């Protein structure tokens, strides 16, 4: 799509970002409270927005309802025009084995809270987001459920080349993944316009 903004800034920023958060990786970023997690999400959103790269960032949040009850899971995922186009073009390559058909046909009103998470996740994946922030959703789940989710996220990463950053206050989760753990929040300096 045509953009009025110079691409160079955006590409430089994405290049810098990928030095800290390389693609096809899952990171766990330790936070102390929900408020801090919210501040981080907001800060990163502003950062991407500043470099006109907000279309690369997807945030999965639990604060608001994100599913329309009268649509199926598939319709919920393909809500935006971009997602529909991507689905049409790329679904045969990766979508079939990434998302089960039964899940796609489920009605929006019969979903478990975890399904809401998967809808948000696949929405970002189909929308070709290169960075996905998961805001503390895994903190309140059972360890076996978290393990299953992480397995699925890791499997999807290989197909999509995205980076997933899980914000969590769960120390067990952080200590279980020491190689992907970040205790300090990476900061990016925003160049102010002259």
């Amino acid at each position, binding site marked *: 799509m045509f953009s009025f903004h110079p691409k160079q800034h955006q590409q430089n920023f994405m290049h810098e970002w990928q030095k800290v958060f390389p693609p096809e990786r899952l990171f766990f970023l330790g936070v102390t409270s929900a408020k801090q997690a919210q501040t981080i999400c907001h800060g990163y959103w502003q950062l991407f927005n500043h470099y006109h790269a907000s279309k690369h960032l997807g945030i999965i*949040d639990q604060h*608001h309802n994100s599913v*329309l009850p*009268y*649509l199926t899971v598939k319709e919920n995922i*393909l*809500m935006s025009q971009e997602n*529909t186009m991507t689905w049409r073009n790329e679904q045969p390559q990766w979508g079939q084995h990434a998302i089960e058909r039964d899940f796609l046909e489920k009605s929006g009103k019969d979903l478990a809270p975890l399904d809401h998470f998967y809808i948000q996740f696949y929405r970002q994946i189909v929308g070709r987001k290169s960075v996905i922030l998961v805001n503390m959703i895994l903190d309140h789940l059972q360890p076996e459920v978290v393990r299953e989710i992480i397995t699925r996220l890791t499997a999807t990463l290989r197909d999509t080349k995205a980076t997933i950053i899980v914000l969590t206050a769960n120390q067990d989760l952080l200590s279980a993944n020491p190689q992907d753990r970040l205790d300090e929040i990476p900061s990016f300096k925003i160049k102010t316009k002259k």
Partner: protein
Amino acid sequence: MRIIQRIFASLRYHRVAAIILGVMMTLFLLFSLSTLIIRDFQQVALNLFESRLNLIDLPRKTLKQLPALQQLSQIRSGLVKTTGQIFVHSLLVFGIVVFIINTVSLLKRRSELIAYKIAGKGSALVSWQIALENVFLYLLFYLGVVLVLICFQGTYLKVLEKINQTVFQQQLPATLKTLQQHITNQQLDQIFKNQITAFNGHNLLFGDTIASQRTLADYDRYLLALLWRGCLIVFSASYLPALCYNWYLNRKVFR
């Protein structure tokens, strides 16, 4: 095409709100169509009344000076004007009712609107969809009302004629009411028997069965007027509040 799919899915899901709005739409359609047809009855009666006066072999100036005829003419033209005003008011009231119902519905659908925003839909597109939902609903009820009226058009038009006559008779001053009650058709026919005109006296003064041979197809212009005006009102009264509320949610929730 996904928007059409979403519109019907949403209408099915919010069926209670849709039925309430639909009932209001039906009432508006019946009331405004009836008002327009009654105005048409009065307009036809007024035109006929004046053309009949022209047929009588008396100078028009003399006729106009007769108070009873003048009063009848004024009542007819007054009724035409009043029914026209009632129709305009019914459009306004309908717009306000759609606005209120839509605003209440928007407040109840807050989480749904947020879900649309999270899914990447813009405010204009979401508002457009909500407005289209209501326009589709209007079209659906419009078709329903028109089909039912076509099935019972004879009865419907007779009822309207009766209402029209009742309203007209209520408007008559006491003197003309007494005249209407005391002078029978036969007496008036006796008075008018030497006049070479195509009408009897009672019909001249009080009119009655002018529109009885008409069908609903003769009022197709009113049906068309209600179609486009109704759609325009429903769209405006739905799109603007939806746009404002989405803008508010943008400011309040996503900033």
